[in-house]
């Protein structure tokens, strides 16, 4: 275990280094010129020249990368030129929002997806199975923004139950916070629930045919114990990986959903930053979320040990 852990940890540093290189180069490959877009409507040549110098745009790419990485190593992610706020501050401002949205969406996905997958696998080819499959297909194929707008029209405009969009901090007003988050969380969770359901179903089907499950049944264990304790535990491994990856994706921001519901999370932050060529923000946020993604991946691998005793050997 310790050896495995050490190996995985050692791999993280070079991975993150490559990530920084990729983020930086991809950003430079974006067409358009940061100074031009930042200069705004007037396109004053003096402003453009000033921004060029401030962004080091006249220097070669490796030198610019050097400036950035030097700052990052010193804990300085730079400042948003568009709104004059430090990038780290923006990340810390958006993180709780994105975390909450991701956690709520994941919870909804797990609560719906895994039980539906189990039911669908144990009652294969029954009405339940078909129903679950239809719902899953619907969840996978519904575009988020469309579902979001429909929900707003129904629950906010027609029924008036929930706020149409916007965000309230849970520390200010917990009820208001939940009211604002439930629709976007459902929209996001819905798609992941479908994915989880499909994977749970196939993993369960595979395991339910395995020899050890037949043995368990032959021992006279009741079906409930066989399914939940013996089969599900083994089937969970790929689902945990999938769940962790999906959670990581959620943490990097749900662009369309955040846009529709005006949730001020990472998704909106990064999209605005890309369109405005606010380099420091794009780099800072992508670096942060990819690091989180890498760490989550590691945690998912470690979680295998907990559910799968064979790997502890």
């Amino acid at each position: 275990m310790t050896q495995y852990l050490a190996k995985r940890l050692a791999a993280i540093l070079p991975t993150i280094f490559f990530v920084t290189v990729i983020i930086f180069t991809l950003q430079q490959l974006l067409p358009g010129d940061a100074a031009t877009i930042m200069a705004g409507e007037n396109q004053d040549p003096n402003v453009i020249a000033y921004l060029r110098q401030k962004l080091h745009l006249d220097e070669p790419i490796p030198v610019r990368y050097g400036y950035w990485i030097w700052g990052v190593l010193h804990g300085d992610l730079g400042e948003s030129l568009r709104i004059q706020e430090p990038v780290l501050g923006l990340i810390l401002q958006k993180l709780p929002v994105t975390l909450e949205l991701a956690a709520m969406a994941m919870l909804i996905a797990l609560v719906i997806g895994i039980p539906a997958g189990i039911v669908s696998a144990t009652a294969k080819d029954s009405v339940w199975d078909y129903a679950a499959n239809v719902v899953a297909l619907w969840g996978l194929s519904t575009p988020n923004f469309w579902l979001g707008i429909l929900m707003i029209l129904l629950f906010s405009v027609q029924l008036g139950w929930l706020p149409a969009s916007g965000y309230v901090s849970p520390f200010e007003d917990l009820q208001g916070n939940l009211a604002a988050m439930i629709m976007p969380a459902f929209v996001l969770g819905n798609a992941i629930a479908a994915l989880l359901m499909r994977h749970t179903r196939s993993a369960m089907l595979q395991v339910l045919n395995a020899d050890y499950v037949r043995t368990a049944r032959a021992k006279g264990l009741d079906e409930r114990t066989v399914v939940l304790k013996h089969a599900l535990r083994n089937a969970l491994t790929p689902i945990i990986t999938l769940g962790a990856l999906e959670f990581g994706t959620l943490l990097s921001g749900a662009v369309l959903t955040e846009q529709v519901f005006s949730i001020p999370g990472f998704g909106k932050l990064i999209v605005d930053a890309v369109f405005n060529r606010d380099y420091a923000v794009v780099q800072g946020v992508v670096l942060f979320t990819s690091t989180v993604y890498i760490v989550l991946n590691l945690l998912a691998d470690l979680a295998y040990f907990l559910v799968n005793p064979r790997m502890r050997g």
Partner: protein
Amino acid sequence: MNRKFVMALGLALAASASMAQTLRIGLAEDPDVLDPSLARSFVGRIVFASLCDKLVDIDEKLNIVPQLATSWQWSADNKALTMKLRPGVTFHDGEKFDAAAVKYNIERHKTIAGSNRRGELLPVSSVDVVDDMTVRLNLSAPFSPLLTVLADRAGMMVSPKAAQANPTNFGAKPVCSGPFKFVERIAQDKITLERYANYWDKANIHFDKVTFQPVVDSTVRLANLKSGQLDFIERVAPSDVAAIKKEGKLGLARITELGYQGITINTGKSDLAQKNPLGRDPRVREAFELSLDRAGIVKVAMDGEAEPGNQWVSPGNAFYAKNVPIPKRDVARAKQLLKEAGVPNPSFTLMTGTTSDAQRLAQVVQAMAKDAGFDVKIQSTEFATSLNLADKGQFEAYVLAWSGRADPDGNLFSFHGCKQPLNYSGECRANWDELLNRSRATLDPKERIKIFATLAAEIEKERPIIYLYHRNWLWAFNKKLTGMRTVPDGLIRVQGLKM
């Protein structure tokens, strides 16, 4: 609980609600930095209208009206503007507003690194403090648009003390002298302002707080208004107008913008201009214009929510050149012109934005021009990229809108002046420059109208920009809101607004 008690409770609640009333405004975008010297976006100006007073303002008819300056006088040689300032005005930090503060602000606009006001105030060579409440702006040459420039961000005054205390990121916590003071900003979420108790015109302020929330999607913005989360939304989608009119509890206001939507043609920005008939030959550009039916374009692309136009100002504007009226669509004449030019089927690429509005506009233009024999290829390009391509001259025709300025100079000089930053067509003519400079040096509006008439006739010969229409600013709001003023600059003036 008896009924009387419930009613009394209801009244008490209503009373307390009106005591702490918030005006919630939905914006179409998240504003950029809230520093008047550095700010560069239209949407930011909407926030500034509640936050930062200006030396002067414009009214519904584009007259210059007093704000922080109560009166002004040009010198005999038109090279100095003396302004009397409003007494008893303080900044949000309690500092006094006086002539020294004006001098500081104009100098800050002109010198701060990255200032977007420097160019606007270029003719202002120095500022004299005449006395405590009188200031004189000295110009290097007469400059007729100066007052309208001072009616925008260049005329906004920030607290000198606060600006000096925070030289690097004043925009994160701006201190001005407007009706509301800055409380907090959560990027992409909300900007909160609260009533400034010592505002000089406080009798006209009827809200305790104003919040600005960017809600990018126009459908969602409207849904928020309908469900009561917002009281006021700007830039309603033209396609939603019919539905809003049907809604009993919503009001709608509109006014024609100061800006325009047009197609800029590369006639000399790069060698691409000579490589395609549209850029090379004015007859082909005339044919292109004649192939377009502006009223039809407005109907299809804007659901009728725009005024067709063919100049940098709308036909209703006092400076519109009546000698150059909107040409009627004439496909036969367009074909004739193409024949004369020897290119019966010219082909060119029209660069346009990625929004659905921009796409629709390009498609209508494509279809109309086809009738005259044009083969228009549409190239949808994300804004930052298109700006860069335009700047480098890597385009043939470009759908480009301008948000507009109150003085026609703001819609003209930078676009048609030789080598000016917004002159994407690359058209460079000495006589245009001469006329543009003359209009700047002439203060008499009647004289300026004559100059613009000559200029319009000259520009029409070349057509580096084919102006199409002037959009309506569309606002929707809770019908309980009264006191709305529709000023063509599209900004929301909170003075007099009441719910």
